[in-house]
């Protein structure tokens, strides 16, 4: 849709903080990314997955905080990249303080059914920031047109 767009088009989607709406965020982001002829299909899939993880976390944060507010997904496309910002009104968290998983070779690894979302996000997109907003968290995901090497092996 944005193939001939100028720089800095902004598209916003606001969804209820409920699990069934994450699919809508994926749909919008992948349609936008697909209209950007500078992004390969594989990188569109990566962005879609990262957005899905961020929206899932946002919705869970609203659930934990008892917030009835909606989650905002703001997409910005320009000549160099597509940026997706997922803003929630949850209680925030410290992304540097997340527990490390045991190595996959350790049988204890199976104790961890959760905690895979943020490592995935970090591995999939070119840039990620977790910003406290005062009211919650804004997760900013950037996918650049010139694949600066997807960081598929860069997670810890």
């Amino acid at each position, binding site marked *: 849709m944005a193939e001939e767009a100028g720089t800095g088009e902004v598209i916003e989607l606001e969804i209820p903080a409920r*699990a*069934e709406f*994450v*699919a809508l965020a*994926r749909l919008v982001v992948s349609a936008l990314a697909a209209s950007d002829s500078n992004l390969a299909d*594989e990188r569109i*899939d990566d962005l*879609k*997955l990262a957005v*899905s*993880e961020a929206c*899932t976390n946002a*919705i*869970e944060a609203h659930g934990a905080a008892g917030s009835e507010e909606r989650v905002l997904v703001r997409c910005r496309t320009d000549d160099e990249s597509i940026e997706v910002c997922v803003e929630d009104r949850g209680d925030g968290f410290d992304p540097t303080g997340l527990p490390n998983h045991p*190595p*996959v*070779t350790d049988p204890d*690894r*199976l*104790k*961890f*059914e*959760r905690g*895979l*979302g943020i*490592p*995935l996000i970090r*591995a*999939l997109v070119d840039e990620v920031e977790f910003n406290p907003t005062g009211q919650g968290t804004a997760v900013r995901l950037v996918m650049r047109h010139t694949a600066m090497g997807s960081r*598929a092996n860069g*997670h810890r």
Partner: protein
Amino acid sequence: MDLGLDVEERDGFAVLSVRGEVDVYTAPRFRERLIELVGEGKHHIIVDLEGVDFLDSTGLGVLVGGLKRLRSHDGDLFLVCTQSRILKVFEITGLTKVFSIFDSVDAAVGGAPAVSGPS
């Protein structure tokens, strides 16, 4: 959004074929179906992911939980997956070393060597 969950018996394995998108919305149904199967005494389960269009960390969590549960019954959970975008999710998270992943249900049933799996 529909999640397809079909079960078939194959040579002592229960084959659970998943179709559609596995995410935070649909994963609970997937988890329940797996737990149900284990409860019915199926301790050797093959999860066929060939019909899955999307799988996120919630889906991975269901599979890890299923594997743990089956191992505690001396069973196992095998995966069938050849789609690169789905395999990628297992690779990034290191779970290719945790699950035995096969090219086809036949290969998984027939005891062919896994394409990837725990060593």
